[in-house]
C-alpha cells in the first residue's frame, strides 16, 4: 500500500527563522498519527504548511499527497484534493452564514469532481444529518461563521465541517485546546465517528488528554523542528508521565508538562 501523505526532508522558515529542520513522516490510508511536542516545537507550523498558509517559506524538502506535489497547490486545490485542517483558532466571519459558507465550499469541490452542485434543500438535509455527530444545534448553522461561538462550539463546528467535506486527510491542529471535558468528549466522539479505512488523520496536540479519546495508531514527538521519537500509543502515556524533558537535550521546549 502507498502512503497517503509523504513528507520528506521538510525545512521551513518563518520570518527568517528555521522552524522545521528536516521532517520525515509517512501516513498510510486510514492511519491516525499523533504529533506531540512542546510549545514552539513546530507543530502548528507543520499543520499550516500542509494546509497552504503562505506566511511560511519552504526552503527544502517535499510533500506528496496521493502522489501529487502538495506544496505547489493553492489552499483551495488542497481542499479539493481532500485535505482538511481543523483550525486551532477557527476564524469568525461576521455576515457570512455558516450554512451558506459550507455549501459554497462543498459545491466548489463537487464542481472540480464533475459532480452536480447541491441545492439549498439537499444541502440542508445533509447538514442536519452531519451536525448530529457533534450535537451542533440548528441555530448555530444559521448564524455567521463562528461569530460569537464559544471555544467548544467553534471546535464542534470544525468537526462538523469535516463531516460534511469528507476529506481523505484531516489535520487536527490542537483541537483539544480550550475544551472542557464535556466538549472534549463530544468533539472526540465526532472525530472517532469519522475514522475510516479511507481517511487518515494527523492529530497535533500538546497534551496526551485528547489521545485518551482519539486513540492513535502512531505517535511522533516533535521537538526543535525535528521528529525525535516515534512509537505506538504508549509513547504518549510515557510523555505524560515523564514530560518532554525526558526526551533529552534538544527536545526541551518552553514547558515540559501541562
Amino acid at each position, binding site marked *: 500500500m502507498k502512503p497517503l501523505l509523504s513528507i520528506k526532508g521538510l525545512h521551513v522558515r518563518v520570518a527568517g527563522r528555521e522552524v522545521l529542520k528536516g521532517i520525515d513522516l509517512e501516513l498510510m490510508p486510514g492511519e491516525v498519527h499523533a504529533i506531540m511536542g512542546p510549545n514552539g516545537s513546530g507543530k502548528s507550523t507543520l499543520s499550516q504548511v500542509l*494546509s*497552504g*498558509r503562505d506566511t511560511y517559506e519552504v526552503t527544502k524538502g517535499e510533500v506528496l499527497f496521493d502522489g501529487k506535489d502538495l506544496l505547489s497547490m*493553492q*489552499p*483551495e486545490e*488542497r*481542499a*479539493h484534493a481532500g485535505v*482538511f*485542517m481543523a*483550525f486551532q483558532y*477557527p*476564524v469568525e*466571519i*461576521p*455576515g*457570512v*452564514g455558516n450554512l*451558506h*459558507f*459550507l455549501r*459554497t*465550499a*462543498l459545491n*466548489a*469541490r463537487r464542481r472540480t469532481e464533475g459532480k452536480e452542485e447541491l441545492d439549498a434543500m439537499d444541502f440542508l438535509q445533509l447538514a442536519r444529518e452531519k451536525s448530529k455527530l457533534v450535537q451542533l444545534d440548528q441555530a448555530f448553522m444559521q448564524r*455567521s*461563521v463562528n461569530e460569537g461561538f464559544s471555544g467548544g462550539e467553534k471546535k464542534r463546528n470544525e468537526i462538523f*465541517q469535516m463531516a460534511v*467535506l469528507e476529506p481523505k486527510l484531516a489535520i487536527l491542529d490542537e483541537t483539544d485546546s480550550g475544551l472542557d471535558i464535556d466538549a472534549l468528549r463530544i468533539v472526540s466522539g465526532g472525530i472517532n465517528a469519522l475514522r475510516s479505512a479511507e481517511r487518515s488523520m494527523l492529530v497535533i496536540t500538546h497534551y496526551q488528554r485528547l489521545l485518551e479519546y482519539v486513540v492513535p495508531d502512531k505517535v511522533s514527538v516533535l521537538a526543535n523542528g525535528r521528529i525525535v521519537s516515534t512509537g505506538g500509543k504508549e509513547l504518549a502515556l510515557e510523555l505524560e508521565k515523564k514530560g518532554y524533558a525526558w526526551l533529552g537535550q534538544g527536545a526541551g521546549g518552553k514547558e515540559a508538562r501541562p
Partner: protein
Amino acid sequence: MTDVGLQHYLDLAERFQAERAAGAPAWLRAFRQEGIAQLARQGFPTSKLEDWKYTNVSPISGQSFSPVRTVHEAGVEAAVARLALPGTGPLLVFVDGWYVRELSRLEGLPAGLTVRSLREALQDGEPLEALVGSRARADASAFTALNAALLEEGAVVRVAPGTVCPEPVQFLFLSRGDTHVALASPRVVVRAGDNSELTLVESYVGAAPGVSFTNAVTEVVLGTGARVTHLKLQAESETAFHIGGLHAELGRDSRFASHIISLGGALARNEVHSVFGAEGGECTLQGLYVGHGTQHLDNWTNLDHAHPRCSSRELYKGVLDDKARGTFHGKVLVRPDAQQTDSRQSNRNLLLSEAAMADARPQLEILADDVKCAHGATVGRLDEQALFYLRSRGISRAEAESLLTHAFAKEVVGAVPLASLRDQVEALLARKLPGAKEGRA
C-alpha cells in the same frame, strides 16, 4: 476656471428667473433671487474649504450643465417598470428633473397624505413659503443656492397628524443619458405632522449612460412623535454627477432614519444635515458607498444635537476598488444645553485594491458634560485570516473575496427597512462587486 463655470450658472439662473417672473408670487421670486445672490457670493467650493477638502467639483463647475426639457421615450418606461417598487403606493417619476405625470401614480392616497408635484403646486399658487427652504437655506452651499435659484420641480409631501402611511412614497429620478449636460434640480419638501408615520424612497438612476448633473435638495420636518424613514438609492451612470442634500429637523420625541446607498456617479456627494429641534428625538444615519473605476463618492453628514435627551446612531461603510475614492466627513455637534445626549458614530472602509482610497474624518464637538458619545473610523483590507479559512475549505480566492465583501456591505444593506428596495440594492451589488456570484449569506 471656476469663474467661467460660475458665470454660466449665474446667467442660467438669471434667465430662468426672468422667464418665470410673470405670475410668480413675490416670495418665490425672492427665494430664487436669494439663491442667485448666494451662488454669486460663495462661488463653487474649492478644496480649501474644510467641508470640501477631499472633493474637487471643477468637473461640475467647469461644464455647462443646463436644464433640458425632454420628451420621454420607450427606454424611460422600461426603466420605470424595472425600478418602481411593488405595491400601489404613490410614485412620482422625474425625467432629467422634469415631473412626468403620465408615468406617475398619485391616485388612491390614504386620507391624511397629500403628495403633489412642486411645479403644479406652484402653478396653483399654493402658499409654500413656509415649507420651501425652511431647512435647506441657500447659504448652506453653492449647490443648495443653485437649487434654490432654479426652484421649480420636485414634490410636496404632507402627512396630517396621526396619519400612518401604509406604503412608501417613491420618487424615481431618471437621467436619460442621451441628453448631454442635462441639469436636474429637484426639491422635495416633506412635512410630517405630529405622530404621523411615513417612508420615503428616492431613487436616482441613469436610464442610459451619459453625462448629467443632478443637484437635489430634500427637506423633511418632523412633528412631535413623528416617524420618518428616508431611503435613497443613488445609482446613476458612472459618467454622471450627483450632489444631494438631505435636510431634516426632528420634533420632540420624533424618529428619523436615513439610509443612503451610493453606487453611481463619476462624482457623487451625499450630504445629510440633521438637527434635533426639540428634546427626545432619535436619529439613525446609515450609508453604504461602493466605488470602482475612478468614481469619487463623498459622504458628508452633520448631526446637530441642539436639545437634551436625543440619541443618534450613525454607520457609514465604504467599499472601494480600482482607483475609486470614498470620503466620509461626519460632524457631530453636541451643544451646551444638550445634556444626556447619546451619540455613536462609526465609519468603516474596505479597500479592495492598492490604488483605492478612503478618507475617514469623524468630527465630534462636545460642549455639554453629561453625554455619552463614541465614534470610530477604520480603513482596511480584506482579512487575510478569513480569506485563508474560506480557501482552506475549497472556496476559490475570488469567491472568498466576494463572500467577505458582501458580508461587509451586508450590515448596511440588511438594515434597509424595506425589503423590495433591499432586493434592488442586492441585485445591483451582485453586479457591481468583484467576482460576485453567490456572495450572500
